[in-house]
């Protein structure tokens, strides 16, 4: 019996192995005999440990040492916080804020002619072709002052 078969039978017949049908009970008890006193969670953890194992890579130490030597031989000119994800995010945020402010400034400059055009439209004046202000002071108004 394998662990998988044991778990399948446990789901089928319940946690109490003594209540299992005889042939399954015998197999289960044989399966559990070597680990009779072990905690079932520990047994499963052992299986996970065994299943998780990866091939030993003897080159790990060599590669780490090479990386350490490389980083020691080539000191970076860029501050380390700038290459970290948080540093990159901070730089991106700063660029975004600068672009937004610059956008507002440009838009404000372009607002001026638009305002005068709207005012001309409201007062029923024709817009001059040379781009000068459309609002011409009323001569009568000047005299009255």
């Amino acid at each position, binding site marked *: 019996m394998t662990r998988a078969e044991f778990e*399948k039978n446990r789901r089928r017949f319940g946690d109490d192995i003594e209540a299992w049908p005889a042939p399954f009970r015998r197999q289960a008890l044989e399966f559990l005999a070597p680990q009779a006193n072990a905690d079932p969670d520990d047994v499963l*953890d052992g299986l996970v440990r065994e299943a*998780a194992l*990866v091939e030993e890579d003897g080159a*790990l130490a060599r590669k*780490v040492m090479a990386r350490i030597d490389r980083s020691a031989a080539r000191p970076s000119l860029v501050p380390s916080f700038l290459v970290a994800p948080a540093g990159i995010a901070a730089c991106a945020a700063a660029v975004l804020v600068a672009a937004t402010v610059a956008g507002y400034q440009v838009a404000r400059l372009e607002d001026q002619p638009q305002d005068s055009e709207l005012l001309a439209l409201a007062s029923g004046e024709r817009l001059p072709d040379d781009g000068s202000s459309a609002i011409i002071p009323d001569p009568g108004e000047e005299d009255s002052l």
Partner: protein
Amino acid sequence: MADEASRGDDELLARIAAGSQAALSALMARHGRGLRTFAARYLGHAADAEDVVQEVLVTVWKQAARFDPEKGRASTWLYRITVNRCIDQRRRRALRNFFGLDDLVEEPAAQEADAEAATAAKQELAIVRDGLSRLPARQRMALLLRAVGELDIGAIAEVMGASAGSVEQLLVRGRRALRDHLADAAAGRERKSS
């Protein structure tokens, strides 16, 4: 080297902080495989795991002086760095996948289960690996820290930045899901053979 191997982790870290490469080699010999196993099974990519473990050990080399034995065990500190690097690596991978820069997907463990049918024991291990790869990331992390890192509940909680209660919950759910997966695989095999 034999001398370094007999030292405790705390002492090795103190010597690494003082610039001893022999101490780093001894620490790698002791924990390198565990860290690599954890990273490989958590990330599902051997190459990413290799990168992560190299990064972790370079970090240990540079920051060994920051380890304080009063605050916890060396293995907890090592796994904490590894967990943080693994999370960063998963985010990078997800971002690359999102922008279509990467066509790598998680290892198809189910195929591995089919390919590795030489013996019942091997097949069972393949089924466990398959089950592990299907667990939610935090359940998988908790189970691997327990089984591979052999950390206790308190240490796992510290590594994961969670409470002991939630780690216990993660372990209970992860083990239950793994048992269910084993049972399903056995039932599937039985159906196939009949």
